């Protein structure tokens, strides 16, 4: 008996001692779902995955998954769409009563700058590693520069002052941030013009560096050209915008779809120059977020919350035969009468399913830019404004016009690009009112998030927000 107990005790002590010796090793646990930053951008394959990662941010709810498309429309909703949902952040935007702590104001800012930093990190990474093929290095530079330029363009339009000569643009960060010290730097707001200069520099570089063709959902040179056309139009630089848009129409190989619905129901249709890819596993629509979640209100397919109503007066501008307007059956036109939640109210069909791709640049927009610029400049580069407008009208099933004025072109732009996130930007550059108020009033410019103000970053706050 004694012996047994002695043995047992010895075993216990030895076991204890053994564990102590091996314990230090037990402290070296490695994460199972992440890798250390030091190895993340260490060679070409890892940089390639980081590039994919950058694209994967595009469908985030703060970016094209929702806010970059929904917010510009909410900010100019009068006579166009109305917010029926419960999200306070969107209701504040729809009624121009935005608070500085608005969750979506914060989210889009954060997501935008995050993607800018990812672009900066990859740009830094490609400069440090060797490539088997330097063409690919240049292409990646182009992709990341366009990514960065695109984000600055979206952010400066929402958070910067509408006046191009205002000193209150947004902060510019072009260096990769990897340390707490770098990350803690407070940045001043650059002027609006400085931000646009950066956007143009990035996009022009991207046009040079990007390939003629890229994989689905990724940037090619015509995406950069088309986006720069959009930038030039926003700045009122019509000749440049026209040239760029004409270049895209002529050379990109994209063509208008036979049906105006196709871009929103079929992935990778010929008309889409750039789509943000989504599928069932990777998308923004989670029931509380995403374009289809908020827009859709139908009983068949993806149902949605039906939080956004198409204003009847706006829908009334379409001819009965125009497929961009309301059709009797759901899925025949781009506007329908909802039959699920909050039924019998008009809804947009553009955002209709959970995993649908999000068209960011459609060729139709290039026709409209060329038409508007030609109309304003009195030129007919590529085609006459009437031809461009009628090209779109005929495709949609609307009666071709006999002649066009600038107002006709702008109206056609509204009808064609409705609910795709163009409205407040277009209204500001054309000086139109939202309801009875100018579209440029401080209440329709997003505030710098209170979070940044509290940290003393990105000062000063925009006018009208304390």
């Amino acid at each position, binding site marked *: 008996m004694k012996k047994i107990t002695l043995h047992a*005790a010895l075993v216990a002590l030895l076991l204890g001692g053994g564990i102590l010796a091996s314990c230090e090793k037990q402290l070296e646990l490695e994460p*199972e779902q992440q890798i250390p930053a030091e190895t993340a951008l260490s060679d070409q394959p890892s940089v390639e995955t980081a590039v994919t990662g950058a694209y994967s941010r595009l469908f985030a709810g703060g970016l094209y998954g929702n806010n970059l498309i929904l917010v510009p429309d909410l900010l100019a909703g009068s006579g166009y769409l109305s917010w029926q949902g419960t999200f306070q952040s969107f209701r504040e935007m729809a009624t121009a009563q935005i608070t500085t702590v608005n969750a979506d104001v914060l989210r889009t800012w954060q997501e935008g700058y995050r993607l800018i930093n990812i672009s900066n990190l990859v740009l830094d990474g490609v400069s440090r590693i060797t490539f088997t093929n330097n063409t690919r290095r240049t292409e990646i530079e182009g992709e990341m520069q366009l990514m960065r330029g695109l984000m600055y363009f979206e952010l400066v339009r929402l958070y910067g002052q509408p006046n191009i000569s205002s000193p209150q643009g947004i902060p510019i960060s072009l260096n990769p941030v990897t340390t707490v010290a770098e990350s803690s730097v407070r940045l001043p707001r650059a002027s609006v013009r400085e931000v646009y200069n950066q956007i143009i520099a990035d996009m022009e570089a991207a046009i040079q560096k990007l390939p003629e063709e890229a994989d689905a959902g990724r940037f090619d040179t015509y995406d950069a050209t088309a986006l720069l056309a959009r930038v030039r139009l926003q700045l009122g630089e019509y000749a440049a915008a026209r040239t760029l848009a004409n270049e895209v129409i002529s050379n990109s190989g994209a063509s208008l779809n036979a049906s105006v619905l196709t871009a929103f129901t079929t992935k990778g249709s010929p008309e889409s120059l750039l789509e943000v890819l989504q599928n069932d596993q990777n998308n923004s629509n989670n029931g509380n977020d995403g374009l289809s979640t908020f827009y859709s209100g139908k009983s068949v397919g993806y149902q949605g919350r039906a939080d956004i109503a198409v204003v009847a007066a706006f829908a009334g501008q379409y001819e009965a035969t125009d497929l961009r307007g309301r059709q009797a059956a759901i899925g025949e036109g781009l506007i329908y009468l909802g039959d699920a939640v909050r039924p019998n109210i008009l809804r947009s069909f553009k955002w209709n399913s959970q995993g649908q791709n999000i068209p960011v640049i459609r060729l139709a927009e290039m026709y409209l830019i060329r038409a508007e610029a030609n109309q304003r400049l009195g030129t007919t580069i590529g085609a006459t404004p009437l031809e461009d407008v009628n090209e779109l009208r005929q495709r949609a099933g609307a009666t071709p016009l006999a002649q066009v004025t600038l107002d006709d072109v702008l109206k056609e732009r509204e009808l064609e690009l409705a609910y795709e996130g163009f409205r407040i930007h277009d209204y500001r550059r054309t000086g139109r009112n939202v309801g009875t108020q100018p579209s440029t009033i401080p209440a329709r410019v997003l505030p710098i998030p209170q979070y940044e103000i509290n940290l003393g970053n990105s000062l000063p706050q925009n006018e009208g927000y304390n």
Partner: protein
Amino acid sequence: MKHKYLIPLSCGVLFAATAAAQTRTVSGRVTDAAGTGLPGVTVLERGTSNGTSTATDGSFTLSVQPGATLVLSSIGFETQNLVVGDRTSVAATLKTAANELGEAVVVGYGTQTKRELTGAVTQLGSKDVENVPTVSFEQAIQGRTPGVQINQGSGKLGAGVQIRVRGSSSISASNQPLYVIDGIPVTSQDLGLGSSEPINPLADLNPNDIENITVLKDAASAAIYGSRGSNGVILVTTKKGRQGTTRVNVGAYFGTSKATRIRKFLNASEYRELFTESINYGLTTPGSILREDYGFTENDTPQDVFSYFAGSDFDANNDTPWNELAFRKGQVMQYDANVSGGDAKTRFYLSASYNDQKGIIIGNRYRRGSIRTNLDHSISEKVKVGINFSLTRSMNDRVADDNAFTNPLQLNAMPPMQSPYNAADPTGFNRSLLYENALVASNRNNNQSGNYRILSNVFLSYEPIKGLILRSEFGGDILNLREEQYYSRFTNDAAGQGYGYSNQVQAVNYTTNNTATWLKTFGTEHTLEALGGFTFQRFDQDQTAVEGQGFPNDNFRRIASAARFTSGSGSSGTGYSFVSLLSRVNYTFRNRYLASVSVRADASSRFGRDNRWGYFPAGSLGWVLSDEAFLQDNAVISLIKLRASYGVTGNAEIGNFSSRTLYAGSQYDTQPGIIPLTTLGNNELTWENTRQANLGLDFGFFNDRITGEVDVYQKNTTDLLLNQQLPLTGGYQLVTRNLGKLNNKGLEVSVNTRNIDKEFKWSTNFNISFNRNKVTDLEGQELVSGSRNLGRVREGEPIGVFWGREYAGVDPENGDALYYLNTSNADGSLNRSTTNLYNSAANVRLGNPNPKFTGGLSNTWSYKGFELNLLTQFTYGNDLYNIAGLYQSANGDYFDNQTVDQLKRWQKAGDITDVPQARLLEGNGTGASSRWIQDGSFFRFKNLTLAYNLPKTLTSAAGMQNVRVYVTGQNLITITNYTGYDPEVNTSGLNGAAVNYLLGHDFYTPPLAKTWLVGINVGF
């Protein structure tokens, strides 16, 4: 463990272990002062492990060595030594020990007598947690624990409970205490992923299996847990068998419950009155939002507007009490049985229990079945082994988190003219309402979490030489959680297609403790206890989830039938480890001068490579003043003991890999990518340090008729584990750093009195705790909990301070909501003039969610077999913020039904009121502000129990030892000025990252249950 404290007493009796043949049998009876036999008294032959316990009538029989001394001990009585001498029959009367100096108190890695304690420790017994209709034991000890604030947060069954031991000591790391069950740190954090409503893993412990609960509050007692001691440590010891007659206990209770309070909302005609006014404002006012942004004109009617937004007829002839539809009559029931006993070699405790609670909120139910075996065996005089093992199965039918439309409480937002039902709809419910009809979800969805839980440990102890005990224990806490959710295609979350989610989490938490304890008495005056040991803990969590959408119909509820697997699918793993060395020396001189020193060294995988090991020392002194000659035999003073302690504890409850800068996978369509996380790493990251000083006084007067404890403390936390906010323009959001300081200081008083101590007995316990929390340094940062929330962390303010715009009421001229500007005038004074522009008002301090004091008052009356116990609980001086007020008390801003107080809205010039004019969509007074802050103080009749013990004559005739029948009422009366549902509220789910400072917020949070039950316990 239990009688380890007896060993110092036995050290002088070295001649005990002689020839075993000369034993003699002693029988006797142990009674209380009134002469009643005391059952269950431990009778131990001093210096040996030979013992028994008394039977129901107090009698015992034991074989002892000649000249033996018996040690008689029982909880609540003073331990007595009884010299047997030549007698074969003895009698003893045990004195009630109100100061319980001889009582054993469980402390970290050991036990001490109450006399020897020099730290601040609260111990509760099994009586406090038995047969209380709560899901987990922490809910049952509310009001009984000075220095420990317990907030159930909501009436949801099985949801997380917020516990603060002496205030919040961290801002970004957890503030919950460390839970140690039978010596093993257990998994107490929420592991669920299916909902932001936390699941409480402590509910897996059957409260009826608990022998005692000890809360270690000061550094002297908690520093032995080192880097995890700052938030206090809660030690739970489960029941053990005792040598003696085998006892069998069976019990059951049954009861019903309802909500403590249901808030009142407008009826249909009141709703129509308010909203006609509100809509008409929008229709008739040029430039109104209704006209500008929604295109209505003065030719439209309130009916048009209502049906546009709310989707139904404004004049419909319904008057639905939506606020009541979230509730039902709940039911509680419990069956339990245990058997305990043993002989000199083997002791056992076996139990089984089943608890079923049907919640007051529709769809909410909790069931738990558990079995436990606690066994210990003496292989020899020197070697003991034992095992504690419990297996629990719990199932929780959960309620959606507060912020979900499917949270039944949100039904109160529906206009009363909308009907809940529609016979023509496939669900039978009306689905054309202002918001989603949560009745559909509660009828057709399921949202379950189920645990299999094994709490187990085995130990071996060996006493190679007298007084030296080597103990090795190994504990495994295995938690298998499965969450199953199915959302019907008829609910919004399922997007018309059906949605399923199945998540399996396996958390394995294993610990080994290896200690050596050496007890030695030098001469008659010096006693030394030295402890040394090391422990290792490893936690591994693996999780696998699959999410699917597109189900053929609601009869198919498992994901095998889903058309598509969606983004919630995946598997992952994480873990952490701790390696620790610990030591402690307790020294007692003349049994009244006490000193203790302890040190623990901890290392954890969670901390940065450059800063891995930390050291946590503590020291304490005690002086039993009343044992000095000048106070001995004093008629008034029976006990005065002074205690002082100082020490360092840590907090390590941060993310497992917060010290690293990492990239995670991120997919673009079908292509795998990587992206940096939004948090930056920090190689220097280490634990936060809390230095705590404690001064305590234990007192007893009038022969211990009045006893109590007073403690004052100061806790200074430095190197706060703070999620420091980074400028977003750099691309990151947070870095966890050791940055900042805060402190807690407080006072705890606990007084016990025996007011009447005759056949009729009346005793009282009163405890009150004051804690003041102040964040002193954040390097200028401010943490904001979110857009609608008011909770913040600011330098110079208590954690969670309400900060925002100050509501100033209504302009009597025009009905505009007003706010105090609170800006600085040129001369530096505060501008108290008002503005109707929300954004122009400055943010100021609006309130404090931390109570000024909390406490409890418990009275027990007994007479013959009757016993009445009333526990009341109070919280004073905290503020509550009803965020739901933005919607439900917003003068008809949107179509949510309004609380009845909104009828007092401004209507015409000259009206004096604090409810602004009803203006649809105009946001007149609807920004987050002090408008919805109220005093959250309350006084609650927490628990009332009337019990009757049947006379022995009756029970023994029926072959039973005792029969107790009782009636219990829980949360019977709540006295408060708070106008919401229940003042004990703390919403979860609004901002998980801010959980530590989002305090006192109410957001459609279900109230607690008021329960009545009847029960019976029978002992054989």
